[in-house]
């Protein structure tokens, strides 16, 4: 599903060049639920950003759903992003000027679905996250947990191949965080492939496996045999 080999990402700021990722290899299989952990500044968000085709990388290879994404132009990347990836952000990232259903509608319109198809998908996604009654509310009228559920509905509605979440519970209190986590687990049980960055070790253990990043590299975690397997598969 997602396979990066010897990938590197350098950020150039004026004169300095910092490598946010180097010799980075990872393999996420279809239907997996992977938690990505690591200290602050280790490159977790950078990894998700590249995985989600939001940024280009400097070196190495990246295959998404069997297709090499190196050298794709901006339009092709936008289209792939729209069709294959669902994002869940720490800050929810709902559009404040649009109500719940219009927020979920945003990627569906870019997808080119017709009105009936979009309405069907919006209803279904809202049902999944248990917010059918709030479709005309504006983000400011919802709690943080509800907002994140709407964001998850928006990520789901296009039936993406891969869900990418960057600290989805980072802005939520424990109770709401638990609810969101339950929802992600449920989605995973229904077959979704999920990569979730988190600081929270309690949440990380609820994933199928944990990938630990330090200093822009995936580090071996002895008690996680599958990780070794993944690294081998990636080389």
């Amino acid at each position: 599903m997602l396979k990066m080999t010897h990938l590197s990402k350098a950020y150039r700021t004026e004169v300095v060049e910092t490598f946010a990722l180097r010799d980075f290899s990872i393999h996420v299989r279809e239907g997996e639920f992977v938690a990505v952990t690591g200290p602050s500044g280790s490159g977790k968000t950078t990894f998700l950003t590249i995985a989600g085709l939001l940024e280009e990388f400097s070196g190495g290879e990246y295959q998404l759903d069997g297709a090499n994404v190196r050298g794709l132009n901006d339009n092709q990347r936008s289209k792939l992003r729209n069709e294959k990836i669902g994002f869940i952000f720490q800050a929810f990232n709902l559009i404040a000027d649009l109500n719940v259903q219009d927020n979920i509608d945003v990627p569906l319109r870019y997808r080119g679905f017709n009105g009936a198809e979009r309405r069907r998908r919006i209803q279904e996604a809202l049902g999944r996250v248990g917010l059918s009654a709030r479709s005309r509310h504006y983000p400011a009228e919802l709690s943080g947990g509800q907002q994140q559920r709407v964001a998850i509905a928006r990520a789901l509605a296009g039936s993406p191949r891969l869900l990418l979440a960057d600290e989805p519970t980072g802005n939520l209190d424990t109770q709401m965080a638990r609810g969101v986590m339950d929802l992600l687990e449920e989605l995973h049980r229904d077959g979704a492939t999920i990569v979730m960055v988190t600081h929270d070790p309690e949440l990380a253990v609820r994933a199928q496996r944990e990938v630990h990043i330090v200093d822009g590299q995936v580090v071996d975690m002895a008690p996680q045999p599958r990780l070794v397997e993944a690294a081998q598969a990636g080389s």
Partner: protein
Amino acid sequence: MELGPIISAMRRNKVGAIVVGVQMAITLAILCNALFIIEQRVALGKRPTGTDEANIVVITNQWAGHPTDLAAKLQGDLAALRSMPGVVDAFASNTYPLSNGGSSLNLKLNPEQRESTAQTALYIADEHGLQTLGLKLIAGRNFTADEVLDRMPGTNVPPSAVIVTRALAEKLFPGKNAAGQSVYSEYQKTLAPIVGVVDKLQVPWTQAGGFGSKFNDSSLLEPYRHEAPYGYYLVHAQPGQAVAVMKAAEKRLIEVNRARVLQKSQTLTEARAEAYKDDRGLVIILGVVCAALVAVTAFGIVGLTSYWVAQRRRQIGIRRALGATRTAIIRYFQTENFLIAAVGSIGGIGLALSLNLWMVTAFEMERLDTRYALIGAVFVLLLGQLAVLWPALKAASIPPALATRAA
């Protein structure tokens, strides 16, 4: 097209949209009225006089002191002018086209009539008048030498005949041949026979909406020798020789008699430029005002849209992350501007028509051709699209990674 969400997003940020919409409406209203006035003034300055302007020279003659024997002096001058090389013909008159000065008469069909039938400009001419002005006779005949009478200042000799323009003929005798009919002039208290009809001769007055504008082509020629201390010699030069003839004629007239002042000499082409100088000035001022207005509106749109883009950086990043192409972002701002401009244009058309209606009643302006309002609306729509392009391009360059960074 994502009209629905754009409209609902705009409803939550009304003020800016309203400001731009109103600005576009006002621009449209002023622009199409100004363009309408410009177009009219330009057309005004192009109206033909019916004469061979480029080859006609006007010399303003004023006799010094208390001149005696004006009849002989006039004939001496005319004989001298007519015999000059390069001169086709010449005559003396009380006025000339584009001079913005002259006399008018109220004409009736008979003395008993209470209201006059037509108003007309009066041109004095002898039998050389038609040829000198280059007028086209379309009915009847020219004056004969016998018909041309002396007309001293302060006398009122009734004319033996008159020649009218086609426009005047149609007002006096609609659908009939005017040649052979008679008209009664209130001033001269006499019925005079119409002996000829010329195709066109504009009145001397040229001001937009001014005196003469209501009877622009109604002119009447009366056969007199203009024996006055002050008058105009009209000289028809051979093609291309007007300026040379003008200089030579001035010299010749001074040779004939030094006791005079030749106040001003010019071709009718020059007289036209002078007559419409104010109109050209108005056209230029209005043009500059329009250009400034368009620039202010365009910058207003650029400014406000740039502000919106800055305000919505995050939202744009999120949209990009959710799969919007750069084109989709550009289209968003174009659509938004189009919606504002469309509403603004509808309001603007209404405003333009009311502004015109007010000017029609207040300044006797002509009614605005609705096509101008429509053309103006299209222009304002295009202006909006053009102005929004630069901020939209800036918006499209916002990186999608913005969604994952800056919380």
